């Protein structure tokens, strides 16, 4: 099925209105400049981050904290060149019930080029004040990306491997404005977290229908009790789990027909030295999926970031 798609006319994504989006080295430079500048005026704290890379649980960023993250995905590509996509993420806890995030995406397609592919602004809202049997969180994101975006942060609609086979010079001419919504449901019981995300996305350029997708995840720390002394390799610092995600078609053709799906073990290492490392090899589950995606990421949390910014602008001194 995939080979037919890759050798015939361009898939559904390519039928969208094409506009040019250019390289944006200044945006990438700005993102990395911020990344480097941040530690200069805030103090870090050990994070207790989940192991998921695609799935969201119901836990939000602590109020006033900024988490700076970098993620990479290496992906194999049949009918085209393999790629390395990457994104920088700035996640800020505005309140205990609202987390806002800014993403900058890019990718390198081997034997082709390296380009900036767009940005995303994500917001997550906790809907219930206390913990319940299932905890819902509403996710709303606006993204402005080119057709060359390959971060595969979520899979939706009829996204298939062949969509990513075009050279950057062609795919970057497609320009998408998408509103993405998710209902995140999550529960933690006896150390196990179980999370389910339902995705609905609308590309507001052109008359594209709503597209749907899902992500499922479960994870658990390797130990549930903390050690009396800080240590790097204590079992409680490691969280292991598994994710599964894929598309569910669109409003006109809902279902598994011509969709891609992935299964990915995940592991996170929360270091006492303030960093979190994540690793996740992902495997395509059908012929429409990339055969292999290797993801890894590094993040660091900076508490009281909001206070530091406020002080820069003349806020109250300590």
């Amino acid at each position, binding site marked *: 099925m995939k080979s037919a798609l890759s050798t015939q006319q361009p898939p559904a994504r390519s039928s969208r209105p094409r506009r040019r989006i*250019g390289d944006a080295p200044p945006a990438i430079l700005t993102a990395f400049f911020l990344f480097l500048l941040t530690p200069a005026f805030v103090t870090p704290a050990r994070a207790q981050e989940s192991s998921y890379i695609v799935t969201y649980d119901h*836990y939000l960023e*602590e109020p006033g904290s900024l988490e700076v993250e970098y993620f990479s995905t290496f992906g194999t590509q049949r009918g085209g060149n393999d790629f390395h996509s990457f994104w920088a993420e700035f996640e800020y806890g505005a309140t205990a019930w609202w987390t806002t995030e800014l993403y900058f995406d890019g990718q390198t397609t081997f034997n082709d080029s390296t380009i900036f592919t767009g940005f995303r602004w994500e917001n997550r809202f906790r809907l219930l004040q206390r913990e319940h049997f299932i905890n819902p969180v509403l996710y709303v994101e606006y993204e402005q990306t080119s057709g060359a975006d390959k971060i595969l942060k979520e899979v939706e609609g009829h996204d298939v491997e062949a969509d990513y086979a075009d050279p950057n010079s062609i795919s970057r001419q497609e320009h998408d404005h998408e509103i993405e919504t998710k209902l995140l449901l999550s529960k933690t019981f006896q150390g196990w977290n179980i999370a389910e995300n339902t995705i609905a996305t609308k590309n507001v350029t052109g008359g594209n229908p709503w597209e749907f997708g899902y992500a499922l995840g479960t994870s658990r720390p390797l130990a549930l009790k903390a050690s009396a002394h800080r240590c790097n390799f204590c079992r409680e610092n490691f969280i292991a789990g598994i994710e599964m995600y894929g598309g569910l078609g669109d409003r006109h053709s809902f279902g598994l027909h011509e969709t891609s799906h992935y299964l990915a073990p995940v592991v996170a290492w929360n270091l006492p030295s303030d960093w979190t490392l994540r690793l996740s090899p992902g495997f395509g589950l059908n012929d429409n999926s990339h055969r292999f995606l290797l993801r890894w990421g590094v993040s660091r949390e900076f508490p009281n970031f909001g206070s530091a910014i406020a002080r820069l602008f003349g806020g109250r001194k300590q």
Partner: protein
Amino acid sequence: MTTTMIRPATKANLLLIAAAFALAVATLPAHAQGGTYVPKKNDGRVYAELTKAPKKAIARRNPMEKDPDAEAAGANLFDQHCAECHGELAEGTRKGPSLRVDQVQQATPGTLFWLLTNGVVRRGMPVWSKLPEPERWQIVSYLKSLSPETTEPKPQ
């Protein structure tokens, strides 16, 4: 590799969203400062959350009560996750109230565990159910070991 400039429309949207993000960072009340604790008017309402614990939660016993390492582990966890708002000695900061006051020290372990699990989201305290149950009980053990309104260093 081509090096065309970013489109003006893209740049404008990017700036707009960056400005909104900066506004969220700079203006929301979550960003109260650290520093010396000064009791605030709404502290009473924060402590009143303790009275909302259900009877079943209040009656729960701390399974780590007799664990000799629980206080030390709890102190580490407190330092990593709680001291940012409540102060290194749990004495309170402008961001979070003191945990050495009578209202907290006289609460049952089950009540403290319930509050830690559910947070006080409206008043800025996140839920901490992402910490496994034994770790939350370890934090409770540490809190119950604190002497009221003193400045003794934490156990190492």
